[in-house]
């Protein structure tokens, strides 16, 4: 197996508590381990359990020192929620890839609220970065939304950007998700991997 960039890959996954950001990060880290690279992973969770900001850094290279990714150096920014993806954009390098769901989980707002609109945020992201892939939330199967498997769908979309075979992804997902939910998660992953995006 080989990664896109043979020397290093830095990935940031951003979202909200309860969306499965950490699980998605766990799976990506495990995939990178399989390539024989040194891997570090770091997660920052706020004090809120559900609905709090969560971000996960995964780094793979011949030797990784800091678990934290420096600003302007991540290769991928994977977002399960639009506001918090926008928040972490400064970590992405200029020619980095954004893969994001156009979904907004609102919060009790202090300050200017005009910015918090999907179109507004997407326009801003596209202005700053060339490679922005948007997954339309409404296009994700209602069932996957209801069972909180949006993370696996997006992971499926993201998997197309890495040169890692599908079977390995499936093996790692099987290992990492709760036993009862294996089938559902694999289906969600597959639907993302097969999703055709404009």
């Amino acid at each position, binding site marked *: 197996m080989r990664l896109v960039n043979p020397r290093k890959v830095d990935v940031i996954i951003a979202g909200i508590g309860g969306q499965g950001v950490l699980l998605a990060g766990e799976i990506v880290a495990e995939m990178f381990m399989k390539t024989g690279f040194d891997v570090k992973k770091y997660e920052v969770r706020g004090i809120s359990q559900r609905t709090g900001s969560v971000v996960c850094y995964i780094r793979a290279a011949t030797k990784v020192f800091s678990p934290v990714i420096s600003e302007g150096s991540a290769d991928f920014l994977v977002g399960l929620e639009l506001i918090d993806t926008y928040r972490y954009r400064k970590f992405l390098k200029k020619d980095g890839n954004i893969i994001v769901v156009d979904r907004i989980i609102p919060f009790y707002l202090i300050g200017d609220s005009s*910015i918090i609109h999907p179109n507004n945020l997407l326009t801003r992201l596209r202005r700053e970065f060339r490679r922005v892939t948007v997954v339309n939330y409404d296009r994700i199967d209602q069932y996957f939304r209801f069972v909180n498997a949006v993370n696996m769908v997006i992971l499926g979309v993201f998997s197309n950007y890495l040169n890692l075979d599908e079977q390995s992804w499936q093996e790692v997902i099987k290992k990492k998700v709760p036993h009862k939910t294996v089938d559902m998660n694999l289906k969600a992953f597959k639907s993302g991997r097969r999703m055709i995006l404009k």
Partner: protein
Amino acid sequence: MLKRLLSGNEAIARGAYENGVSFAAGYPGTPATEIVEEIAKYNRIDAQWSVNEKVALDVAVGASLGGARTLVAMKHVGLNVASDTLFTLSYTGVNGGLVIVTADDPGMHSSQNEQDNRFYAKFAKIPLLEPSDSQEAKDFVGLGLSISEIFDTPVLIRITTAIAHSKSIVKFNIKQKTNFHNKTFRKDSAKWVMIPANARKRRLLVEARLKKLKNFSERIWCNRIEWGKRNIGIITSSICYQYAKEALSDASILKLGMTYPLPEFLIKKFASKIQDLYVIEELDPFLEEQVKVLGIELKGKELFPQTGELSPSLVKDKISIRGSQNKVSSTETIEKFPPRVPSLCPGCPYLGFFYTLKKLKLFVAGDIGCYALGALPPASAMHTCISMGSSIGIALGLEKAMKDRIKHKLIAVIGDSTFLHAGIPELIDVVYNKGSVTIIIFDNQTIAMTGRQDHPGTGVTLKKESSRRFDYVKLIRALGVKNVQVVNIYDLKATKKAILEETNRDSVSVVVAKGPCILLDKYKNRKRLFKVVNSENCRKCHECLNLGCAAITIKEKGRIEIDAELCIGCSICAQLCRYNAIEKYAPR
């Protein structure tokens, strides 16, 4: 060789297993919680949640005296609670190796303060180890246990959030010896009974031990020099070592794994060959001050902040390899994008409670736990939060100072585990000193904030064995509180009635408000009949928004929408809606 991607906490647990730890204890607290939780997964190790950190350390001391290799873990503020034992434990020393892990939280991701617990090692005169990744986290447990047994001392291992919660590759020692024998137990009053006559003798041994440890730190493998270019030299430890390696790949580095007592000769030797010397450390200038005392010139806190976490980019900005300082750090530019204010989970039992408190306009002395989020908008219904258990004492003090001006307008709120941790003595104080405080105990059947751990009130141990379930009402009555009520916290009307009744009394009273945490496994799989807004009935009064439930949002033209992915169907919003606009809905 077996390799795994482990967090620092998981690695410490693995270290305990590989090095023959047979007893572990602690109290949950971010970012330390997973240490004892992971240790409990090893069948060979007896592990427990104690009721608080001091009790955990006391039990650990007993286990060590009994000959067991022992580990005790807690968050930084937990060590404050355990410190009473710690300072004298330094005098008695140990029998079986005893390692105390403190997990500090620079940046206060989930803590009430940012204290630098390295000072506890210096203060209590015990050795200090600081791992810089998961491999070291595992290895330093073994090293710590050996130091503990060789030098007859408790050993402090200090990690930070970035070590505890970051994962890196750990090599397992599969050929580990499995036949660890406990040390022989023997009575030794001169060593273990710290009455002044004995303590004075032990006191001298502590100083002698420090001298020996100082020599030891000069040649221990975890203190090493990595020579690079000699124009820039870095003295560092913990996660800052990783930041320095990443930002300044050419620099020479003195990497300290044992940071108290410090290796003076090694530091002097390093400094003498370096042109510009820097100390990189998070929080207080713990290393910097000690190195400066040696008469060595260096730069440290004049470049780096004493608050929050450092980062590779910050290190790069402050120390350029050309030796000049340039650029303003980009992390210092404040982003105007609105922050995501932390909030209680959708369907949390506390949501309705704080809504009621806001309506009643009470002064609320709060405590440590998820419910501290009740201090944030829209409820903004908590007015103090300082340390575990302090809500009750603070409420009593307010009453003493303000008397009739605050009487009947004051309550203390405290979680179930927080009450057991430190609230009971405070409640006794209210009874004894004739206070009339009303105390609400939130019984959500778990330690929710740290990820749902069991405690005496759940009747299940860390090893998932059933135990005696603590009875709040019986205890509270036994303490001398006559007025005790139990209410269902999801019932808004009943809860409001109970609060009004009890706050209007002239004597101390307690309300046990029951409502399980919605994230508990046993409630997770209940049928999710979530709520939707009936647009015909909705008058757009937006009262439901005052709940602060993240599932309820305002859309275009003031339309209210309930998010299907977030709503758990708790019904609190339906109870407060005057127009019956919120209805049940079952998808498919």
